[in-house]
């Protein structure tokens, strides 16, 4: 936006780009601040028990006091997320490509892909523990199991959404089926793949916590599970905060990768 286009009296002092971008977060900061402030006041005014609902100030202090504990367990959870997500991306892309390329493969694979999402994670997670042990592997499997699905569905849609005229243009140029797939369908589906990855990274975080909740030797989910019965409610909230920050950062990273990869995809030509 050019400075002239700004409404009069809005901001007449030109701000550096970084400052202007940060200003864009102002509403979120204000809303968050108001929520936290209200919570603090509420808890203090009505004298709510700390083990029932600790005020934000106590949670903040807990985050600081247990920083090494939280970091240790966040690292475990982060590894489960990253490995599980990576696995899901690799498997998801391969499955989606098979499904989009071959009708037979679509008919044989797709029902199972959808069926996999009907498995109640809560019931299979304990079994996984028995099968592969309480270490990270079972959590990685849970993460991969729930995050590969949005990747497959989005990418299949993307690979199939190719413009018929484009396909015909490739055919008149003599393109083989495989060339159409690699030179047209795959690049065309990149925005869809990235949408899928953004959803996948978010559900990965949830997957890791569910996996840890059922049984683990470490991780933020495990820490919450352990702290709640001891009425260490502030620690539960501290873990939630760390988890949320981690999730938002992971999402932001995928978003940044998306913007970079799709920098030339803007404004499709006719």
């Amino acid at each position, binding site marked *: 936006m050019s400075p002239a286009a700004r409404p009069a009296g809005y901001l007449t002092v030109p701000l550096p780009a970084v400052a202007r971008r940060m200003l864009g977060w102002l509403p979120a900061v204000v809303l968050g601040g108001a929520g936290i402030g209200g919570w603090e006041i509420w808890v203090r005014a009505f004298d709510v028990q700390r083990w029932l609902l600790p005020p934000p100030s106590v949670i903040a202090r807990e985050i600081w006091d247990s920083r090494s504990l939280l970091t240790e367990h966040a690292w475990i959870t982060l590894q489960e997320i990253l490995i599980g997500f990576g696995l899901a991306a690799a498997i998801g892309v391969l499955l989606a490509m098979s499904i989009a390329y071959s009708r037979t493969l679509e008919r044989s694979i797709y029902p199972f892909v959808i069926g996999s999402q009907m498995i109640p994670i809560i019931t299979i997670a304990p079994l996984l523990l028995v099968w592969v042990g309480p270490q990270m592997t079972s959590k990685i499997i849970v993460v991969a199991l729930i995050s590969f699905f949005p990747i497959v569905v989005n990418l299949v849609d993307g690979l199939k959404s190719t413009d018929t005229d484009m396909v015909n243009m490739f055919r008149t140029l003599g393109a083989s089926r495989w060339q159409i797939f690699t030179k047209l369908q795959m690049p065309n589906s990149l925005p869809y793949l990235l949408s899928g990855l953004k959803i996948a990274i978010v559900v990965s975080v949830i997957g890791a916590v569910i996996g840890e909740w059922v049984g683990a030797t470490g991780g933020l989910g495990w820490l919450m599970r352990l702290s709640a019965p001891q009425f260490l409610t502030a620690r539960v909230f501290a873990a939630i905060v760390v988890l949320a920050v981690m999730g938002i950062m992971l999402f932001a990273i995928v978003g940044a990768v998306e913007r970079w990869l799709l920098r030339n995809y803007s404004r499709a*030509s006719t």
Partner: protein
Amino acid sequence: MMRPQYSGTTDAGPQRDAPEAVPVLGVKAVSKRFVSGGMSPSSLDVLSGIDLDLARGEFVSIVGPSGCGKSTLLNLISGLDTDYDGEINLNGDGAAPRIGRVPYMHQRDLLLPWRTVLDNATISLEIRGAGKRRAREEALVHLDEFGLAEFASSYPSEISGGMRQRVALLRATLPGAELLLLDEPFGALDAITRSSMHTWLSQLLADSERAVLLVTHDVEEALLLSDRVHVMSSRPGRIVSTLDVEFPRPRDAGIVTSPQFVELKARLLRVLSDSSGVAA
């Protein structure tokens, strides 16, 4: 069959002078019927008995109202659609599959938004197995005559509609086929850009041996570019009239105001309104 016994302009090229020279494209008695299945099958005659010949270096246009089957005909010639009656010969051969051998330029530029101008043009060479570097070198040679030299590394979203169509044309012509199909290639452009594209294309093709078949509903465009104009009626599409355009090529957009051109245009418009009147 009327073989070209008119206008001396197309003889400029190294056209074989034997009267039985094999045309680049020979369309004989081609008909096309769309059948929709279901409980009560119905059929629609889209093309009926189309005859058409293109010699080396010739520019031929088909004009007709929307829905007369012009694009269907191009789909048949390009090999995209192989279901028809009659005969279509490419260099006298009607048996070999044509798909992949006849470049076909569409009204939409169909450029890949993730590729630069240069890489959009080279896709046709890459498909033929050329390495990226060699394809680029080959395309770079032509960028200048296509007025794209400064835009080689621009993306389609950054250039104008006229430029995008030129990229699409470069892509279609790079593999060097003898026949080029144009389906209302300038239909989406504004009048001023279209006019400059006509002059440019006329010059580009002036000493080319490539035969071009243009489908359009722009009468002026057809007359300005072609050696011969066929008028098609709709439902079923058939060629109702043929006009020879004897102005020497390349032509300048200035000729559109000359009395001969105006007279020709009036004749063509009359035929066109008669034919669509019959069809209505």
